[in-house]
């Protein structure tokens, strides 16, 4: 994946470049908004990571400008501002996801990969298939090896999200944000309990577990 990092904190940018490169991505970084806009206009990127507050041109203006020009590259905003309003502003400006600083690197990489994936599966799907697992989005049914799996509505949503991001690590925060639409940080392991229930439904009685725990990051659904 080609990733553009627009971040004025050079050390933070260097850490991101290193981490993303080690994960097999190709990175380019720009140190301010104007430089970032120039790079974004020239190159084809799969995802852009944009800091909100930068010299010369702030992240929101940068993304608004690109969106006006018809550039639909997914954007992950990074911000030291964590209030709900800031998040809403960022998403309104055309951002696709929002990560508050400081963040765990696993969180960043999970979100970047999720954004890139979303772009690939842009067309409307009615059937999701990950290995032996099949989800009918219209009939709201799930089968593994042809055997029907009975899921609660929320478990269905959880599995749908995991199937759409199969092969990638998704974090607990991402699940809480994208499946439950809450943006806070629970003190207890609520998400783990929901995932382990889902796991017992889709993996129990089968020879090979599909839902994996990724240490230090979250979970991953493997084909």
């Amino acid at each position, binding site marked *: 994946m080609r990733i553009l990092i627009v971040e004025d904190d050079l050390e933070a940018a260097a850490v991101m470049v290193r981490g993303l490169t080690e994960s097999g991505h190709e990175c380019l970084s720009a140190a301010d908004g104007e430089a970032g806009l120039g790079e974004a206009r020239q190159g084809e990127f799969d995802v852009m990571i944009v800091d909100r507050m930068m010299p010369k041109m702030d992240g929101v203006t940068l993304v608004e400008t690109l969106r006006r020009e018809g550039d639909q590259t997914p954007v992950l905003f990074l911000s030291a501002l964590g209030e*709900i309003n800031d998040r809403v502003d960022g998403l309104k400006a055309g951002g696709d996801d929002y990560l508050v600083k400081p963040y*765990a690197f696993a969180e960043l990489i999970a979100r970047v990969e999720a954004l890139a994936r979303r772009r690939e599966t842009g067309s409307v799907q009615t059937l999701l298939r990950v290995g032996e697992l099949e989800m009918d989005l219209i009939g709201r049914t799930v089968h593994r090896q042809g055997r029907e799996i009975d899921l609660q509505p929320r478990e269905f949503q959880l599995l749908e999200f995991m199937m759409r991001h199969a092969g990638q690590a998704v974090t607990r925060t991402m699940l809480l944000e994208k499946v439950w639409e*809450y943006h*806070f*940080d*629970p*003190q207890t392991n*609520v998400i783990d309990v*929901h995932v382990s229930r889902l796991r017992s439904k889709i993996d129990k009685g089968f020879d090979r577990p599909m839902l994996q725990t990724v240490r230090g990051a979250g979970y991953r659904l493997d084909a």
Partner: protein
Amino acid sequence: MRLPRIFRTTPFRLTLLFLALFAASASAFLAYIYIATAGEATRRVDQLITREMRTLQSAYGRAGTDALNQALIERAASERPYLYLLMKPDGARISGSIEESPLESFNGEATWTSFQVTEFDVQGREIDRPARGLQERLSGGEILFVGADIAEDEAYVVKIVRALWGAGALIIVLGLAGGVVVSRNVSRSMTGLTNVVDAVRNGDLSARAPVRGTRDELDELAVGLNEMLDRLERSMAGHKHTGDAIAHDLRSPLTRLRARLEASFLDLEAGRGDPQAAFAQALDDTDGVLKTFGAVLAIARLQAAGAAPDPVLFDPADLAADICELYEPLCEDDGLDFKAELARGMAIRANREFMAQALANLMDNAIKYTPKGGAIMLRVRRRSSGEVEFSVTDTGPGVPEEDRTRVVERFVRLENSRNLPGAGLGLSLVAAVAEAHGGRVELSEGPGKVGEIGPGLRVAVILPPA
């Protein structure tokens, strides 16, 4: 010259205005009384004189001047209160009880006049008595004057007029005195308010306006001012406390982090220790510091904003149902009996995200502190006051009554919870969220103590209905 303070007060000015209106209507009232009494007396005298005049004229009509003259002489001799004068057409006196007409000139038409008659009392002193008379020309050309002594009627009128003046003066005095009392009362309350404003301006946030319990506008203003000051004072104290608390609570984990890193560094230099474990621990500690920081910031922002951002209208039961759905599996896994009682059909205007977080915090706490085999109940109901109440009740150890106010404060953790994770910010955030929505948090005992279990804790978030 500066008027004394009381004359400059708004209430006093209003009193004067009121008094002026009052005096005007009182004057109209008194004038009516005057016309109806004193005026009536004068009219009665005029009527009597007119009647006497007609009687005499009819005597004259029947039998001429001599008969009239005779009648006058008879009448003057009797005890009648009338004065008579019969004159020739040129005005010369023919007969009567007075020497000459009090009229200076006479053009022949019936003419009324008020005049004085001079009498002598028993001691021979001269007394002027008021009188009234009517002069007319008779059909034969002679002039007849009929008058009456009205001293008694006059005295009656004077009494009435005096009484009216007295009443008027009394009205003014009473009105003024009432105005002074009212304005002094009002301005005393105003002075109380002004003093508070002055004190606050000079930096004394503990000043409060006296509330008299009369529930009038001024009292309401005083109550409002006091509430505003309470909030301001709490907020200021909160800011100070936040600063102190952040310094304190971030310093300890940072110190610990630093010490661990230093120890690991020394270990690694000496060729022992596990660098990976040291780093993992350091990251964990850093996350803890960041979490604390985030929570303190969220509370401080809510308190500073004073109101929750982006409120929307929703059914509190829907939100609670979402939270139930999120937490029920966790309760089950922890061996806790979870129940929900959600009253439907109410509405609140609130920030959904903050409310969800507040409920999640309450659930987190309940799950954390309730031992296996206990029970947790999430409830949404309408209070008899109309307020909407969310409550989470557990069967954990509870919070002793004397600590219930304290645990809501930032960073306060009770001794028996020190070994559990958390920064002591959960309830503070719940309280901040409740207050930002114009509500409050109430802590009370749970279901009670049964053997080793309980007494439990019940935390309620009470919000005004939308």
